[in-house]
C-alpha cells in the first residue's frame, strides 16, 4: 500500500508531479516498465 498525502500546502500540481517523478523512478529502479509521459499528461489533464 502506498499513500500520497495531499495535506494543505501539498495539494498542488507541483507536489503531484514530484510524486510522479519519485514513484516513477522507484518503480523503474525496481525493474517495472512505466509510462512517465502518459502519467505526466494525465496529471496535466486533471489540473485543467
Amino acid at each position, binding site marked *: 500500500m502506498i499513500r500520497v498525502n*495531499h495535506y494543505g500546502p501539498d495539494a498542488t500540481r507541483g507536489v503531484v508531479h514530484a510524486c510522479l517523478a519519485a514513484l516513477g523512478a522507484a518503480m523503474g529502479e525496481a525493474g517495472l516498465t512505466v509510462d512517465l509521459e*502518459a502519467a505526466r499528461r494525465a*496529471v496535466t489533464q486533471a489540473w485543467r
Partner: protein
Amino acid sequence: MSEVSSDVSSGVSSTVTHPFLDLAPLSAQHFAAIEARAAGMLATEQDVVIMQGEALLPLEGCIRGAARPGTTALNVITGPYGQTFGNWLRDCGATVVDLAVPFHTAVTAEQVRQAFAEHPGIDFVSLVHAEAATGNTNPVAEIGEVVREHGALFMLDAVASVGAEPLLPDAWGVDLCVIGAQKAMGGPAGVSAVSVSERAWQHIAANPQAPRRSYLSLLDWKERWIDGGRKALLHAPAQLEMLALEACVERIETEGLDALMARHATAAAATRALALALGAGLEPYVYEARDAAPVATTLRAPSGTDASELVAKALAADPVLSAWSPGAGRWPRR
C-alpha cells in the same frame, strides 16, 4: 534557530532569544477569537469548543460523554479509527453494533438504514468522514438523513475531511463534529475542535457517567467557558499550538475554503489518474472515485513488488509519500 551569546572570558553561554519562547500570555479574549475563526471551518450555529490536545481528545471526550450502560451504539468501521471508537464505547458499557465495510469502499446510507432496522434500539452513531489511512470517504449527508429519521445522536470524526471536502454538520444533522488542523488545514496537531448541538449537550449533561472535572470533559468547557461568557480559561492554553492554529486559519481565509477544497479534489483526482497512466499494475486502492478521499490517495503496489521498498526509494526524493501495511500493524500518523 536559537541565538546564543557566549561570554568567552567566563565560559558561560546563555540563550537570549527564540521565536517559540518567552511569548506574552494568550488571553481568554485572544483564545475566544481564535476559537471563533476556527469555528468558521465548520459553518455551524452550534457551540464550538477548542480542545487542548490532538483530536483523539475530543473524540474520546464525546464518546465518554455520550455513552453509558443502556446506550446502543452503531459504530461504523471504514478504517482503523472506527475500531478505536468501538473500544471506547464498550468501555463505557454501551452495547456496540459494529458495521464494518471493506476499507477500500465507503459505507452506504442503505447499510446504515439496515442496521437500524436490525437493531431498533440504536441511539448513538459514530462515523469517520474521511479516512486518511485508507483513503476512503463516506457519504455523511445521506447517512445523516437516516440517523435523523431514527433520532439517534450522531458523532462524526471529520479530522481528515475538514478543509479537503464539504463539511456541513448543521445541514447533515451531526451532533458532535470533531476536527483537527493537521491535515487539509495544514496546521498544528496539538489542538482540535468539536461542535456540539444543543441536544448533545442535554444528552451529555444527563449522563451521570460523563467526565466532569476532567481533561476529557466537554461539560467543563460548556459550564465554565461557554456559559461563563468565554471570559476565563479552564487552564493555561497550549499557546504555541493556538497561535499556529490562528496562522493556519488566517491562511485558509486568505485562500478561501472553496479554493482549498478544490485543490485537494484536483490533487486526488490527478494522483489517481497518474497511477493508472503510469502502468505496471499500479492502481488506486479505493476503486470508485466517489469513495476516494480528497485528503490522501492510497495506491495498490504492483503485484510482486514491496510497497515499503518502493516508498523508501521514492521517499528519498519526495517526503510527501508514505506507506502502510495493515498486516504488520504499521499505521501512518494521523
